[in-house]
């Protein structure tokens, strides 16, 4: 095996491949920063390119897009409160608050560093621990998955400080929205009210962008109108404001001590992201939310979460990015695509005449070694390029909303349409926007709703599969040690945080 390492090294570090990785990262960061567009979409569009490029170059390009997109999603999450990709929904919670406090650059830098740390660790795990971890991942069947989903829902919703009932209600609403469409087991239509367009259910991107982004746009817009009306009424306000308001970029730098303080959260995110990423079907947004929830529990400044905590940004972003290497583990170990991204990489391998699975590394040692090297160094290209780009992006974030909002709004609608070529998605987007406004007005937390919406299809499938396999016996849900362990941890955490920690206040 080692003798193929040198040619792989030459392949991975050939100028052409490095250039493709850099182009990919740049495209990924930029596309990911646009609400609704994700790296996955760009990969899907560019798939046929593998017909025309050398395998290493094509994989370099796709890897670059993927990693860039993963981080790019957090740019719009922090800058506009709009998760650019589903995985960055958790990043939006604290990232956007940090921006409102006037420190978008600190949040963006935290996101970048934690993203790169999470991603690199996950890649190393893919390279060195793929097989053992994949075998563990296979022990996750319907029973274990349901326990994991239940755990994540409890963690996020029931522990929202001071708003437990509202959190649970929002998670339930998310689950309800996710149930619209075809019953995954029987095929019957549910909650479609005779509208055939709803048969496929609500798509994730329009709901996500609508709830977070469009609602924010509507609120900002109405604020802007209010201010304008006030201005006309009394003329004391200063007319000419500079384009950037009073943003002072020199005060908005991430210090080393701040970075060190976020490291614990980053490692929590990295660990959870890597583990959850390796489970087929769990996904990056679940990883980000669980990491966020755990980091809050274990933080010395847990109260800061939700108010612009850099730890919150670090945990969510590390959790999100740390799925990127490990999501390929089931694909490499067994040929099972565990996520949409893994499926697209699988398709790319197939288009190149390589069958995903355990034989891949033996049959195409050079290319796969080269891919491993690319996976690692693409992170550094991401770090370098993004560090160069971020000052510009954080200035964009501070452009006055009357200029910025219409642009973001157009991009959100375009991005949503492009993701599924569907006009219905645009209507869902607008509807979700108005729903978001109402929920914000009554101070409901939005994160549990999104998490409920994301995990509900998987949780329902896992629950009903478990019951089918256990022939209707609910005790079957407790038939696995992993599941019992997850339920126990969830119960202990809830008891601890409701009974013990509440008294501290």
């Amino acid at each position, binding site marked *: 095996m080692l003798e193929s390492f040198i040619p792989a090294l030459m392949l991975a570090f050939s100028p052409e491949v490095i250039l493709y990785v850099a182009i990919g990262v740049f495209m990924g960061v930029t596309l990911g920063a646009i609400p609704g567009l994700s790296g996955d979409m760009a990969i899907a569009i560019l798939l046929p390119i593998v017909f*025309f490029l050398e395998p290493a170059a094509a994989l370099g390009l796709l890897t670059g897009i993927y990693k860039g997109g993963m981080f790019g999603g957090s740019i719009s999450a922090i800058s506009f409160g709009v998760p650019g990709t589903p995985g960055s929904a958790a990043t939006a919670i604290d990232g956007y608050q940090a921006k409102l406090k006037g420190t978008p650059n600190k949040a963006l830098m935290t996101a970048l560093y934690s993203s790169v740390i999470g991603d690199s660790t996950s890649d190393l795990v893919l390279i060195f621990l793929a097989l053992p971890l994949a075998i563990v991942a296979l022990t996750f069947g319907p029973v274990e998955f349901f326990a994991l989903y239940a755990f994540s829902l409890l963690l996020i919703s029931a522990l929202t400080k001071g708003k437990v009932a509202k959190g649970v209600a929002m998670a339930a609403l998310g689950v309800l929205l996710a149930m619209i469409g*075809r019953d995954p087991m029987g095929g019957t239509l549910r909650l479609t009210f005779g509208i055939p367009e709803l*048969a*496929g259910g609500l798509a994730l991107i329009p709901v996500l962008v609508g709830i977070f982004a469009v609602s924010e746009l509507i609120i900002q817009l109405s604020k802007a109108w209010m201010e304008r009306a006030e201005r006309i009424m009394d003329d004391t306000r200063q007319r000419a404001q500079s384009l950037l308001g009073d943003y002072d970029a020199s005060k908005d730098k991430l210090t080393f001590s701040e970075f060190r303080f976020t490291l614990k959260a980053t490692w929590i995110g990295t660990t959870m992201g890597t583990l959850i990423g390796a489970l087929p079907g769990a996904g990056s947004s679940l990883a980000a939310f669980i990491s966020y929830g755990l980091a809050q529990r274990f933080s010395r400044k847990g109260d800061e979460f939700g108010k612009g905590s850099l730890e919150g940004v670090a945990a969510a972003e590390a959790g999100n990015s740390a799925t990127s290497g490990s999501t390929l583990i089931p694909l490499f170990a067994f040929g099972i695509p565990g996520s949409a991204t893994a499926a*697209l990489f699988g398709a790319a391998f197939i288009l190149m005449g390589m069958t995903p699975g355990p034989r891949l590394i033996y049959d195409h040692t050079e290319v796969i070694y080269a891919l491993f090297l690319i996976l690692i160094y693409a992170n550094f290209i991401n770090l370098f390029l993004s560090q160069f780009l971020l000052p510009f992006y954080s200035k964009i974030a501070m452009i006055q909303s009357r200029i910025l909002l219409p642009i973001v709004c157009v991009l959100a609608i375009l991005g949503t349409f492009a993701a599924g070529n569907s006009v219905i998605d645009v209507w869902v987007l607008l509807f979700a926007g108005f729903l978001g406004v109402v929920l914000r007005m009554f101070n409901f937390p939005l994160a549990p709703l999104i998490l409920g919406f994301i995990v509900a299809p998987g949780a329902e499938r896992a629950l009903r599969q478990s019951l089918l396999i256990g022939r209707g016996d609910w005790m079957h849900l407790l038939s696995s040690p992993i599941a019992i362990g997850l339920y126990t941890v969830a119960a202990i955490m809830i008891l601890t945080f409701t009974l013990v920690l509440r008294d501290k206040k």
Partner: protein
Amino acid sequence: MFHKMTNSNKVAVTVVASMMAFAPGVAAASPLSNDPIRLVIPFGPGGGSDITARVLSATAPEFCGPRIDVVSMSGAAGLEAVNFVRNAEPNGHTLLVTDYGPIVTSGFVDDVDWSHDDWQPVMNFTEWLPTVYTRPDHPIQTIDDWVTAATEEPATITFGHASPLGLVHLPLILFESVTGLENIHVPTSGGGETRSLIMGGHIDLGMTLPPSIASEVAAGELTALGIFSEERSPVLPDTPTFREAGYDVVLPAWLMIFATSDVPSETVEHLQDCFMEALASPTAVAMSDRVNAGIEPLNAADSTRLYQNTVENIGNILRDIGEID
């Protein structure tokens, strides 16, 4: 990169167009305009249908004239794609590439404003042969093992099959109604989930299409029990058909290109000719081999027979289980 690609496509189209200007016989005969042809697929990108359609879109412009785009529309469980093609202008520039699910099955069970006769096949890419498989250390290793086990203890064997009434579920229903056996049907989110449930020991059997398990079966990491087709699959030469084992259950799936029935017949004929010509080209054959697509094109007439046959079969199964009356 995307721009570069479209540009090079444009160059290719221009080159082809200028070549055709010197071959008036070809250009005059084409009922197509210069607008691109859209192959609409009712599934997400990256799957077998997408990959197969892309072989055609990469090779056919040379033979058909205009550029060919693959458009993925998975909304409303695929019906959005079907409706999009249905409502497009009937000029042969908007075509549907689908298996029988969104068109035959949906035509029966969903509330749609079209019937099976509103569609005409242009060409068939390939036939997919549903295959039952399991892990190698499972006690059931052959069709006979399965039948014996299911007879001794009815409704105990768990069977994973992707979405209900889909390509890899209907054959199981047909098999059960022919043999009277009962299994526990476990719907999954797709082939990947079925496979991880089987390999993790959570369910007993599952159904998939041969190319996705061929290399694992050859390496002894999965066992293929049997195939619901008339003949064995070329990629699984050692796996018997259910017919060989004495059960006459045959329900292959296909991947067909459809036009609406109001597209003029000379347009359909032109498309059929240039698609078939393109797929017979050395480039297309090489691509098809590389992606394991197993493309064996059928012309419009043969595809129509296959389509009508499937409509009848699926109708019978659905009536049989009381899904429609």
